C-alpha cells in the first residue's frame, strides 16, 4: 500500500515537475515556506497565529488521513460531512481506509527509511490504545498540539480537573496532548428482551452465572486478544477485584506489581471464567466438564450468532449501536442496552494523532481542528451514532438541546445511568499480560499453577 503510494507520487512528480518549473508562481510560493521542523517548533511554542497555520496549510494543499475503514456509515459520513468541513480551507482531503496497526507500520517504515517531518505518508490517523502507545514509545508523534487548536476550549484538558482524565489518558498511557479526542465509546452488553425478560436480566456477573446455569449454551464472548473479548475479560477482572477497588489497580504499569500481586488480583476473575466455561456456547452444560466452549474469533462472528438466535447476549463498544443496528435490520427489534455490570462499564475515547513524519503538518492541524468542532461531533452523533468526543458540559446551550432532541435512542438505558457506571479502560501493557494469561489458562486449559502462568506473562511484557 505504502509502496503504491510512493510510485503514484513519483509518477505525479515526474509529470508535474516540468510544468512547475515554468509555472513559477506556485513553486516560488512553496519555496517561501519555513522548513517543517521550524514550523513545528514555532507552533508548539505558541509563536504562530492560527491564521498563519491556515495559510501554510493552504500552501501544503492536501492532507492524508488514515482511518479504520470497516464502517460504511462512517465512510459515508466522512464524505458528506468531514470532507466539506476540511476542504472549505482549500485543503484537499485524501481519506485512506486502513487497519490502524497497518498505519503504524507505514509510519514506522517511513521513519526507518529516514523520512522526517514533511516527508512521510501519514498526516493524521484515527487511533487509540496500544497503537498510540507504540507511536509514543518510539517518539513518532508530532508533539503536544491538542491545547493549541482553537477548538480545544470544548475539551477538558486541565490535568487538575478529574473530568480531563478520559481526554489525557489513553488505555493508561498519558496522551500528553499529542492526540485530540474524536469520539467516545462505552462497552455495553445488549440483550434480546424477547428471549430474556427484562426482570430476569442480570445486573452482576454472579447473576449472569446463575442465568447461564439455567440457560446453558446461550452466552458467548469473543476470544481475546481481539479487543472486544479482551474488554470482556477486563470487565470481569474489575468486578472480581478481590480488594473491591474495581478498576483502580488496573490503571498502573505492570512494573508496579510483583507477579504474585498481579496473580492475586486476577485470580478470582479467571476462576470465574473457568467456572462458566461449561455453560458457554458449545460447553457441556455439566459442572466441571468444560466441553468444547466456542469463543467467536471476531466481533462480527459474535454479533452474527446473536442476530441468528444462537445466543441471547452480545457485547460491543458504542451505546448508540443498538439503535443503528435495529434500524439496519441487523438486530431484533426487541434488543436493548443493559447496565451491566453495575460495578463498572469500561468507557474510553478514540483520538486523532499526527505522526512525527507527517508530510503536511499544518494541513493536519487545520483538518483536525475542523473535525474537532462541536458541530462536527454533533453531526457525527446524530447522523451515524458515534458518541461525542467533545465534552458536552462545555458546549453552547443550543447544541446541548440539539443533542438531547436528536441523538439516537439509547434503547433501554439513559445517558445518566451510563455515565454513572463509566470506568476507565485498562493499562495497555496490563492488557497484553491479561490476554496472554487468557490464552494459556482458558484457551489452552493449561494445568500449570495460575501464579506461574501470570509470572511468565508478566516477565514477557516487563523484561525486554
Amino acid at each position, binding site marked *: 500500500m505504502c509502496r503504491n503510494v510512493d510510485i503514484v507520487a513519483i509518477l505525479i512528480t515526474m509529470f508535474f515537475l516540468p510544468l512547475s518549473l515554468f509555472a513559477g508562481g506556485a513553486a516560488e510560493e512553496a519555496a517561501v515556506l519555513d522548513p517543517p521542523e521550524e514550523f513545528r517548533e514555532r507552533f508548539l511554542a505558541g509563536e504562530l497565529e492560527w491564521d498563519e497555520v491556515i495559510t501554510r496549510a493552504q500552501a501544503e494543499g492536501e492532507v492524508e488521513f488514515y482511518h479504520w475503514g470497516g464502517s460504511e456509515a462512517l465512510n459515508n459520513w466522512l464524505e458528506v460531512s468531514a470532507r466539506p468541513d476540511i476542504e472549505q480551507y482549500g485543503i484537499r482531503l485524501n481519506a485512506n481506509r486502513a487497519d490502524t*496497526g497497518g498505519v*503504524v507500520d507505514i509510519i*514506522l*517504515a517511513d521513519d*526507518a527509511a529516514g523520512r522526517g517531518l514533511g516527508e512521510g505518508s501519514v498526516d493524521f490517523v484515527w487511533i487509540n*490504545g*496500544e*497503537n498510540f*502507545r*507504540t507511536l509514543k514509545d*518510539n517518539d513518532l508523534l508530532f508533539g503536544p498540539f491538542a491545547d493549541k487548536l482553537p477548538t480545544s476550549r470544548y475539551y477538558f484538558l486541565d490535568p487538575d480537573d478529574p473530568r480531563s482524565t478520559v481526554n489525557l489518558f489513553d488505555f493508561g498511557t498519558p496522551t500528553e496532548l499529542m492526540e485530540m479526542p474524536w469520539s467516545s465509546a462505552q462497552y455495553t452488553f445488549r440483550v434480546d428482551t424477547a428471549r430474556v425478560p427484562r426482570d430476569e436480566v442480570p445486573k452482576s456477573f454472579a447473576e449472569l452465572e446463575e442465568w447461564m446455569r439455567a440457560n446453558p*449454551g446461550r452466552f458467548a464472548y469473543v*476470544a481475546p*486478544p481481539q479487543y472486544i473479548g479482551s474488554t470482556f475479560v477486563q470487565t470481569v477482572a474489575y468486578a472480581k477485584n478481590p480488594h473491591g477497588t474495581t478498576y483502580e489497580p488496573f490503571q498502573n504499569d505492570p512494573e508496579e506489581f510483583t507477579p504474585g500481586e498481579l496473580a492475586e488480583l486476577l485470580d478470582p476473575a479467571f476462576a470465574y471464567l473457568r467456572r462458566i466455561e461449561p455453560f458457554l456456547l*458449545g460447553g457441556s452444560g455439566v459442572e466441571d466438564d468444560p466441553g*468444547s466452549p*466456542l*469463543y467467536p*474469533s471476531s466481533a462480527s462472528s459474535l454479533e452474527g*450468532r446473536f442476530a*441468528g*438466535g*444462537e445466543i441471547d447476549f452480545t457485547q460491543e463498544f458504542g451505546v448508540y449501536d443498538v439503535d443503528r443496528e435495529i434500524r439496519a435490520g441487523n438486530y431484533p427489534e426487541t434488543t436493548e442496552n443493559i447496565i451491566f455490570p453495575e460495578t463498572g462499564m469500561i468507557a474510553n475515547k478514540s483520538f486523532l494523532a499526527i505522526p512525527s513524519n507527517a508530510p503536511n503538518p499544518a494541513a493536519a492541524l487545520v483538518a483536525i481542528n475542523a473535525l474537532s468542532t462541536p458541530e462536527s461531533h454533533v453531526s457525527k452523533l446524530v447522523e451515524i451514532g458515534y458518541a461525542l468526543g467533545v465534552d458536552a458540559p462545555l458546549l453552547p446551550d443550543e447544541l446541548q438541546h440539539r443533542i438531547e432532541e436528536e441523538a439516537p435512542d439509547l434503547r433501554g438505558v439513559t445517558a445518566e445511568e451510563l455515565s454513572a457506571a463509566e470506568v476507565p479502560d485498562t493499562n*495497555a*501493557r496490563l492488557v*497484553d499480560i491479561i490476554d496472554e494469561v487468557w*490464552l*494459556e489458562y482458558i*484457551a*489452552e486449559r*493449561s494445568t500449570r499453577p495460575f501464579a506461574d502462568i501470570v509470572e511468565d506473562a508478566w516477565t*514477557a*511484557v516487563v523484561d*525486554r
Partner: protein
Amino acid sequence: MLNSNQSSATRNETRRGDSVAARWVRKQRIVRGLTIVAMLAPAVGTLLVLYVGPLLLALLQSLGHAPLYRVTIFPSAQFYERVLGSSRFWISLVYTLYYAFVPTIISTVVGVGLALLMNRRYWGSRFFSFFFRLPLVVPYLVGAAMVVALFANGGLIARILFALGIIEQTGDFPRILFSAGGYGIMLVYLFKQIPFTTMVVGSVLAGVAPEYEEVARTLGATRWKTFRYVILPRIMPGVVTSSILVFAFNFQSYEIPFLLGATFPNTLPVEALRRFSVPDFTRRPEAMAYVVVIAVISGVILFLYLKGYRRYEQSRGGA
C-alpha cells in the same frame, strides 16, 4: 608429388579448420552458457527477490536484528528459546502436521482413484470432468464461506435437519467447524485439492499408452496387479508433484485455519500471525522465529519425501 602436396595442403587446411571449429565451438559454448543464465535470470531473480530475500530478512529479525522494531540484540537466540520453550508451539506443531497430512493423504488416494475412473469414456464423462474441475477456479476463501454456510451450527444442513425434526434445535448439530478436530479446515482443503490431484494425475495418465494395460491384462494380470505394477509406476511423478504441492500449501496456509479452526489449538502459521499482530512491535521477532521454524520444518519434510521418491525411482531402475 602433386598428390602429396595436395594432401599436405589439405592437411594444413584441415588443421587450420580444426582450430577455427574448436574456437567456434568454444564460443558457442560460452554463448549457450550465457543464454542459459539469461533465460534462468527471471526465474532465479524472482525466487531471490520474492522468496529468499524475505526469508533472510525473517531470519535476521528472528535473531534479533530488527531496527525497524527497535530490536538490535543480534545475534541472540532469545526469540527461538521463547518459541521452542512454550508448550503452545509443540501442540500447534502437532495440529499443523495433522491438518496437513490427513487431507494430503485423502486427496492423493481419492484423486488417483478418480483420475483412473475419468480416464475411461462413458456417457456424460466429458461433462463430469468439466464439472469436476469447477472447484479449481473457486478461491479458498470462497470455499471457506461455503463450508460455513453449509456446516455451521446455524448453517443450511443444520436448519434442514431441524426442519425435518431430526434434531431438536440447530445447536444440537454436531460441531464441525471451529473445533480442534479441524473437520471444517480439511473439508475446504479436500474440496479444492481432490480435483487438483485428479487433474495433475489425470494428465500424466493420459500420456500412458493404453497398450501397456491391455498387454498386462492379456498376460493374465489382475486389475490390482496391473495398477500396482504397470500404471502406478508410470503416474508416480504426477502423484508426487501434486502431493508435494498440496502438502506444502496445507502446512503453511494461514487463512483457512484462522477462519475455521479453534481458538486453541490451531496451526503454527496462525500462532505466528497472532504474535505478529501484537501491538507491541518489539515482540515481532518472535513471529519471525515462528516463520523460520515453519519454513525449516516443511523444507525438511519435503526434502525427505523427495529423497524417498528418488530412492524408489532408483530401485525401480535397478530392478
